[in-house]
C-alpha cells in the first residue's frame, strides 16, 4: 500500500482541485483522505455521504468554578498563555487556554475544573470515487495536528480493510504542525506549486521539510503559463534537489467552473487542465510502482 500526500505550502495553488481530479483518475483504487482539516474543501467536489460520524476529543480546557474561587489571584501569573484575566473578576478566556493544567494543579481552592474538549468530528464516507475519510475541526479548536494524524490512521485502516493499493491525502497548507503530521511516514509527497515569487519561496521551505523527513518528493507546477520563465526556473531548482517532475498544468478557467458545478475538472471532458492533470497522474502512478511498498 502506498500513501501519497499532496501539499502546496501556500494556499490557492489548486491543490484541492488537483487532488480531487487525481481521486477521479485513481479509478476507485484509492482510499481518499482530506487532511486539510482546518479548511476542508474536498467534500465540496466529492459530495460524500457519511457512513459513520465520530466525535474528536483532544486536550482539556480549564474553567474556574466561581463559587469555589476565593479570588486569591495565584493562578493569574502562573498561566504562561495570558489566558487568565486579572482584575476584579478572575476568569479564564477559553480561546486562549492551551490546556496545560498548571492553574488546575496550583489552585489552593481546587476551584478549577479540567474537562476534555470536543474539538471536532471525523467521518468515514462514500463518494463516487471510493471511500473518503475527512474531518471538521470545531471553530477555534486546537490540535489540528492530532486530527490530521487520526484521519491518516483511519484512512490506512480503511485501505487495509478494503484492500486498496493507494491512499490519496489532501494535505494542509503551511509547513507547521498539521503539515508535519500529514507527511511523517508517508511514501511520497507531491507538491503543487505555482510560478510566482511566493510559490517559489514557499517551495524552498517545503523541500527543506521533505528532505528533513527523507520523503521522495514530486512536483507539478500549476498555472505554469502565467510565468513560463519562472516555471522553468522552479523546475530546474527542484531537479537539482532530487525532486521528480510530473509535468505542468496550464491556467484554465474550467477549474473554477468545475468547482462551481461541484465536479472535478477531469469530469468535464476535454479541457487543457484535465489533460495535463491526467498526464501528471499517469507519471506519478508510474513512479509509484518503482517505490518500495511500506508494510
Amino acid at each position: 500500500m502506498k500513501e501519497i500526500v499532496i501539499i502546496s505550502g501556500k494556499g490557492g495553488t489548486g491543490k484541492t482541485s488537483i487532488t480531487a481530479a487525481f481521486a477521479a483518475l485513481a479509478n476507485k483504487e484509492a482510499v481518499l483522505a482530506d487532511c486539510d482539516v482546518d479548511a476542508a474543501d474536498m467534500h465540496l467536489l466529492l459530495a460524500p455521504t457519511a457512513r459513520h460520524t465520530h466525535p474528536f476529543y483532544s486536550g482539556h480546557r480549564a474553567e474556574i468554578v466561581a463559587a469555589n474561587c476565593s479570588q486569591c489571584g495565584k493562578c493569574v501569573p502562573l498561566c504562561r498563555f495570558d489566558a487568565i484575566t486579572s482584575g476584579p473578576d478572575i476568569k479564564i478566556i477559553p480561546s486562549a487556554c492551551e490546556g496545560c493544567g498548571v492553574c488546575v494543579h496550583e489552585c489552593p481552592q481546587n476551584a478549577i475544573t479540567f474537562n476534555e474538549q470536543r474539538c471536532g468530528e471525523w467521518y468515514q464516507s462514500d463518494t463516487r470515487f471510493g471511500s473518503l475519510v475527512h474531518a471538521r475541526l470545531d471553530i477555534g479548536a486546537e490540535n489540528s495536528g492530532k486530527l490530521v494524524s487520526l484521519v491518516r490512521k483511519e484512512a490506512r485502516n480503511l485501505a487495509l480493510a478494503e484492500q486498496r493499493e493507494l491512499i490519496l491525502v489532501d494535505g494542509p497548507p503551511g509547513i507547521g504542525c498539521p503539515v508535519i503530521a500529514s507527511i511523517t511516514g508517508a511514501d511520497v509527497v507531491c507538491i503543487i506549486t505555482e510560478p510566482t515569487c511566493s510559490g517559489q519561496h514557499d517551495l524552498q521551505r517545503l523541500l527543506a521539510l521533505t528532505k528533513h523527513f527523507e520523503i521522495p518528493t514530486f512536483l507539478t507546477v500549476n498555472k505554469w503559463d502565467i510565468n513560463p520563465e519562472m516555471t522553468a526556473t522552479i523546475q530546474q531548482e527542484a531537479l537539482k534537489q532530487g525532486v521528480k517532475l510530473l509535468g505542468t498544468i496550464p491556467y484554465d478557467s474550467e477549474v473554477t467552473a468545475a468547482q462551481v458545478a461541484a465536479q472535478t475538472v477531469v469530469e468535464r471532458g476535454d479541457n487543457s487542465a484535465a489533460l495535463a492533470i491526467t498526464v501528471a497522474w499517469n507519471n506519478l502512478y508510474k513512479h509509484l510502482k518503482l517505490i518500495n511498498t511500506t508494510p
Partner: protein
Amino acid sequence: MRLSPPQTTVQPMKLAIASGKGGTGKTTLAVALAQACLSPVHLLDCDVEEPNSHLFLTPHFSKKQPVTVAVPQIDETLCSHCGQCADFCQFNAIVALPKQTMIFSELCHSCGGCIRICPTNALTETDKPVGTIERGQCDHITLVKGTLDVGQAMSPPVIRAVKKQHDPKYLTIIDCPPGTSCPMITAVRDADFVLLVTEPTPFGLHDLTLAVETLRQLKLPFGVILNRCDIGDQGVVNYCHQESITIMLQIPDARQVAVAYSRGKGLLDALPDLKPQLQRLLNTISQSQQGGQI
C-alpha cells in the same frame, strides 16, 4: 518618494488581514494597504510558516533576532525517575522510563508545569530557538517579519513575538496566517478590526463561513473583501447579504494582477486605480473605530 500630508487621519489601530482559505490575495492586499497609507505604517507579517510580504516590498532588513521558547532540560543525576513530570505534561512531551526520563522538546508548549512539579529539582528551563523575527524599512512602511524554522511544529510563539513589536503610535496592519485554528487566532485575537479576504467560489465561500464563525466567537468586528470578484458564482455575495456582512471592496480578476504577482510586483503596480479606494477603506475603518458606522 515624497509623502503628501494625509487628508484624513487614519487613527492608529490594529487591522488584521485574514482569510479562511489560503491564496485569496491576503498578503497582496496587506501590502497594498500599507503602500496606500499616507502616513508611517507598521506591517506585521504573522504568516510565519510562509512569510511572503517582504517579497513585494524589498525592504532593507536591519535587525534579525532569534525567537526562543523555554523548554525543560533534565539533570539526570538529580532525577529519581518518579514519573510525575510525564504524568503532568498534557502534551506528551516527557516520557518517563524506569531508568531514563526523555524530553521531546518539539512537543513542549512551554507551560513550565513539569518544572514546578518535579520534587527533586531535576528540571530547569533552557531556551530553544524556533524561529526569527526581522525588522526592516521600505519607504514609510516598517515591516516586521516572523519566520518559523523549518521542522518546527508550533508557530504561535513566533506569531506572539512578531506581535510584541506592535507600537501603538502607528497604524498596524497584520498579515495573518490562513485558516481558523490556533495560528490564525493567535494573530487576530486583539485586532481592532479584521478584513477577511475571499474569492467568489464554493471553496472561498465555505472557508469564509468558517472564518466568520471564528471572528464572531472572538467578538471581533470585521468586513469582507471580495478578490477576483468576477470569477465563480454568486454564493459569497448572497451569503454576505443574508448575514448582513459588509463587502467593503471588490477587486476584479485581471490577468495583469496574476502576471504582476508572479513577478513579485504588488497589487498597486497592476491596478494603480485601487489606491484611492484603499485609502477610503482605511478611513472608513478608522472612523468606525471612533464610534462611526460602517
